């Protein structure tokens, strides 16, 4: 879709939404070339001259996501109601049979290396782990009946099927599946909540004061809430920085803030199990991204190079399992 097509499709919808026949779309800019979604930034210019900064996202093709973007609007609304900082949903529906979403554009930084290294974010880094703990506790209170499209995912069979489907066996991943299968915490399955599924540095909009919004909900599903805490601790999301939580904070900050907000203690052993699952999962996703390039679906030097990052996850898995 080009900028003109975007404006043609959205102008009447937004004009109706804002009750402003003279509304026009300005400064459209494509943000990412994702394989399964396209994202645009633009401004809605109102008759009085007011500017509304917005983001448009549309599904291009079915990816690995367990639910469709048409459900993301409902999820974002439910998350906002539960007190999670999220971009406000302006419009959602279908364009040419493909689900789309228009939401408020939240100002701030999402690039992990800037969040972790720029002086302007020093104050944010001190607060982020605790703010993430509180935001996760809020996500885990979203009523399940508000998001009927979400399905429960049994992690080990789900990721085993994904790996097998890619047809590139890895002995280190088999060791991890065996290790995880023998140590699955008894508590997994006791409590079923909404799980964001990709809550990590890179999917957080951050200002100098800290967390402003949690984005990229397309991997959301139902499951054990500790999955989100484990994923946030996966080494890849530290982007080379030493702190275990997203490169910006400590496990204690995260766990204490989560416990204070949720009213339930965090068992670090359970989070560790989920961190191992997360490391395995990111390793498998690296294979999947390289496959997206190799299959010709999206030719990209970036996707190709990610294939050679699989071994970083294998190394981390051996480390986490105490095998090196």
């Amino acid at each position, binding site marked *: 879709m080009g900028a003109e097509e975007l404006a043609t499709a959205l102008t009447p919808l937004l004009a109706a939404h804002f009750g402003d026949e003279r509304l026009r779309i300005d400064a459209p800019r494509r943000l990412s070339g994702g394989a399964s979604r396209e994202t645009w930034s633009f401004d809605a210019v109102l008759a009085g001259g007011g500017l509304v900064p917005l983001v448009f996202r549309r599904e291009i093709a079915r990816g690995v996501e367990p639910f469709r973007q048409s459900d993301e609007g409902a999820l974002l609304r439910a998350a906002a109601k539960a007190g999670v900082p999220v971009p406000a949903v302006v419009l959602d529906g279908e364009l040419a049979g493909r689900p789309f979403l228009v939401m408020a554009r939240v100002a701030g930084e999402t690039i992990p290396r800037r969040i972790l290294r720029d002086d302007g974010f020093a104050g944010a880094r001190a607060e982020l782990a605790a703010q993430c703990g509180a935001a996760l506790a809020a996500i885990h209170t979203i009523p399940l009946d508000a998001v009927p499209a979400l399905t429960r995912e049994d992690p080990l069979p789900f990721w085993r099927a994904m790996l097998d489907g890619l047809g590139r*066996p890895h002995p280190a991943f088999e060791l991890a599946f065996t290790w995880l299968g023998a140590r699955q915490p008894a508590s997994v399955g006791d409590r079923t909540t909404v799980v964001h599924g990709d809550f990590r540095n890179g999917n957080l909009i951050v200002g100098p004061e800290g967390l402003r919004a949690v984005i990229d909900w397309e991997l959301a599903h139902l499951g054990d809430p500790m999955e989100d805490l484990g994923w946030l601790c996966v080494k890849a999301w530290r982007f080379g920085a030493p702190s275990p939580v997203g490169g910006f904070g400590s496990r204690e900050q995260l766990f204490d803030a989560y416990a204070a907000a949720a009213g339930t203690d965090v068992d670090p052993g359970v989070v560790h199990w989920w961190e191992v699952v997360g490391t395995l999962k990111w390793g498998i996703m690296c294979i999947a991204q390289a496959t997206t390039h190799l299959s010709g679906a999206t030719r990209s030097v970036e996707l*190709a190079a990610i294939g*050679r990052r699989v071994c970083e996850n*294998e190394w981390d898995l051996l480390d986490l399992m105490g*095998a090196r």
Partner: protein
Amino acid sequence: MTEPHDAPSAAELVAAVREFLEGDVMEATDGRVRFHARVAANALSMVERELALGPGQRADHAAALASLGVADEAELAAAIRSGRLDDRLAEVTAVVRATVRAKLEVANPSYVRGA
């Protein structure tokens, strides 16, 4: 040792392209293209290391797999999954660790060195 080809060797050609990406291309670009130029240069660094280390790693890897009675990575993965090598877990883990280390020596050597 690259006969019948003339100099530069394959490795030297790759190095020349990498230096071009790191220099002229990155200086002349910004944003997404500059980022992808960096990714591309990094990929060529991997190729250079694989050209240098690959032959020795292939021999070591084949010997390690043979010691476990398997022919390739797929067969080792299947043996681990089936439990066939459960009584040799320490040996299996040592082989897997050595293999992953070899892959990192090509893909991202700083990762092995405790980065």
